[in-house]
C-alpha cells in the first residue's frame, strides 16, 4: 500500500538526515518505527506526509509510492486528501478553538453531510471528549489533548494514519488507554497505522511489524514479536540483560557501550 524505497532526505540542501530508508506498510496493519533521538523517525513520517516541504526538507533520492502513485513531490494538502494523515508530535491542538471545532477541521476535507456521524464516531472512541466538546482545547490536560489530535485525524477517515510519539509525556495508564484505542480503530476502520515511538515495549506490543532506525538507516526489521525477543533490542531498547531479567546498574560500564549495527 505504502512503499518507501531508498529514501534520502536533505534539509536545506546540506543536512543529510535519511540515508536510504526502505519500508513498507501493508493494508490494515500496524507498523512501528523505533529509534533513539535524531535517528530520523519524525523525518521519515514527514517525508511520507509531505510536511517536509514546509520545513526546507526534500526527498533527494529514492521513491515514496502510495497505491501505485509517487507522492514524494506532492504538497502535504494533496497527500492528506489521498488519505494519509499525520498526527504530529507534541499535541498540536489549535489551542483557542474548542474540542469540537478542532474535530470539525479534521473532517474539513470530507463531505459536509458526514460530519455529525464522524463526530459521533470519534466521541465513541474517546467518550471523554464528548463531555469536553465545548471547552477550549488549549486548557485540556496532556492526555486529553492527545485524544483531540488523534480524534481530529480520525475525522478524515485516513487510509494510513501516521502517529508521531503518541505516548510522549503521558502517564503509563493513559498510554495504555491510547494504544488500546489505536488497536480498536485499526481493526474497526481497517486503517493502516505507522507509529513512531520511543516507548519500544508498548509499540512492539501493539504492532505487527517493526523497523528500527538508526542514523538515518533501517538497521533491523521484522515481526514485532520476533523483534521483542531479539537480544540487541532487549538490551538497547527494552533495558533487559541477556537472560531477560532487569538489568542491574552494577553491570553497566561507566562508558556507554554502543552497538555497531553495520
Amino acid at each position: 500500500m505504502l512503499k518507501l524505497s531508498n529514501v534520502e532526505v536533505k534539509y536545506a540542501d546540506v543536512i543529510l538526515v535519511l540515508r536510504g530508508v526502505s519500508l513498507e506498510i501493508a493494508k490494515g496493519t500496524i507498523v512501528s518505527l523505533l529509534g533513539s533521538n535524531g535517528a530520523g523517525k519524525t523525518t521519515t513520517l514527514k517525508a511520507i506526509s509531505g510536511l517536509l516541504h514546509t520545513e526546507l526538507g526534500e526527498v533527494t533520492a529514492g521513491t515514496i509510492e502510495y497505491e501505485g502513485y509517487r507522492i514524494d513531490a506532492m504538497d502535504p494538502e494533496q497527500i492528506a486528501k489521498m488519505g494519509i494523515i499525520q498526527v504530529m508530535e507534541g499535541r498540536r491542538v489549535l489551542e483557542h478553538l474548542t474540542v469540537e471545532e478542532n474535530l470539525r477541521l479534521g473532517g474539513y476535507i470530507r463531505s459536509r453531510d458526514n460530519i455529525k456521524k464522524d463526530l459521533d464516531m470519534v466521541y465513541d472512541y474517546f467518550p471523554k471528549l464528548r463531555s469536553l466538546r465545548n471547552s477550549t482545547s488549549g486548557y485540556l490536560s496532556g492526555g486529553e489533548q492527545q485524544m483531540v489530535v488523534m480524534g481530529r485525524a480520525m475525522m478524515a477517515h485516513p487510509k494510513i494514519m501516521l502517529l508521531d510519539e503518541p505516548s510522549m509525556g503521558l502517564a503509563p495508564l493513559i498510554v495504555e488507554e491510547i494504544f488500546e484505542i489505536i488497536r480498536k480503530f485499526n481493526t474497526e476502520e481497517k486503517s493502516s497505522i505507522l507509529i513512531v515511538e520511543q516507548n519500544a515495549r508498548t509499540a512492539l506490543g501493539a504492532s505487527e511489524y517493526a523497523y528500527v532506525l538508526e542514523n538515518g538507516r533501517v538497521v533491523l526489521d521484522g515481526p514485532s514479536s520476533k523483534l521483542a525477543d531479539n537480544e540487541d533490542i532487549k538490551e538497547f531498547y527494552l533495558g533487559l540483560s541477556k537472560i531477560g531479567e532487569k538489568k542491574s546498574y552494577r553491570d553497566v560500564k561507566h562508558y556507554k557501550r554502543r552497538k555497531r549495527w553495520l
Partner: protein
Amino acid sequence: MDFILSLIISGLMNGAIYGLVALGFVLIYKSSSVLNFSQGHMLLLGAYIFWFFRTAMGFNLYLALFLAVGVGFLVGILIERLTLRRLIGQPLISMITVTIFLSLVIEGFVSLIWGSYPLQHIAIFSNRCFNIGNCVLTAQNLYAFGLALTTALALILFFRYTNLGLAMRGVAEGHQTMQSMGISVKKILNISWGIAGMAATIGGIILGSTLGFQLGLSHIGLLAIPAAFIGGLESPEGAILGGLLIGLCESIVSGYIGNAAGVPAAFLILIVVMIFKPYGFFGLVKIERV
C-alpha cells in the same frame, strides 16, 4: 446636553466606519500575522472603483455597488497572489514593508487614472433629516452607520458559524497543523485577503459618499489601526468596539478641546490601552499551561 448628544452621535457614526476598516486589519492579521498597512488605500481604491461604475459607466446604484464589492474582492486576492504569497516563510518585517509601500503604489495608481482632485460628489443615501431633541441626524449618516454595522455583524457571524470561517480561525493558530489535515493554507489566506478587500471597499463607498471621493479617504486607515489594536488584533468584535470607542473619543475631544486634538487623543488612548492591556481588550492571550 444637546451638544454632547450630537457629539456622541457623530462619534458613533464615524466609529462604525473605523470599526469596519479595523475589521479588515483583523481579518488579515488573524490568519497570517501580517499587519496590512495598505488597508486604507484598498479602501480608497474601492471607493474610486465604485465612483467609476456609478458615474463614469452610469450603472444603477445596486449594480455599481455589487460590481465594486466584487472588484474589491478580486483586488484583495490579486494583492495576496502577486506579492504576499511569494513571501510566505520570509521574515514578517519584509511582508509588512511590502504592505506599506503597496499603499503608495495604489495611491499613485488612483491619482494617475482619476487625477488628484476630488471627484464629483455622488450621494447614495437620501437627504432626509431627523431631529432628536435639538440635534440633527441625517438619513445619510444613519444609513452609513447601519450599513457599516451590518457588514461587520455579517463578518462576525461568518467567522463564527461557517466552515470557511472556522478554517480561517484554524489557520490563525498554526499553518503546519492545518496542512497536516489537508487544508490549503494558501487558499484560505487568499480568501481572507479577498474578504478584507471587500470590507475595505464597502467602507470606502460609505465614507466616499459622506466625505466626498478624494485621495484623503485613505487616512482613515491610520485611525483604524488604534481601533484594531484596542480591540485586540485577533477579535472581530473587538475591532468594532474599538472603532466605536475611537470614534466617540475623537468626536468628544474635538468638540470640547478643539479639532486639532481629536486624532492625537485617539492615539493617546491607544498608547494607554497598550500599556495596561498589551493584547487589547479581546485579543487572544497565548495559552500557557502550568
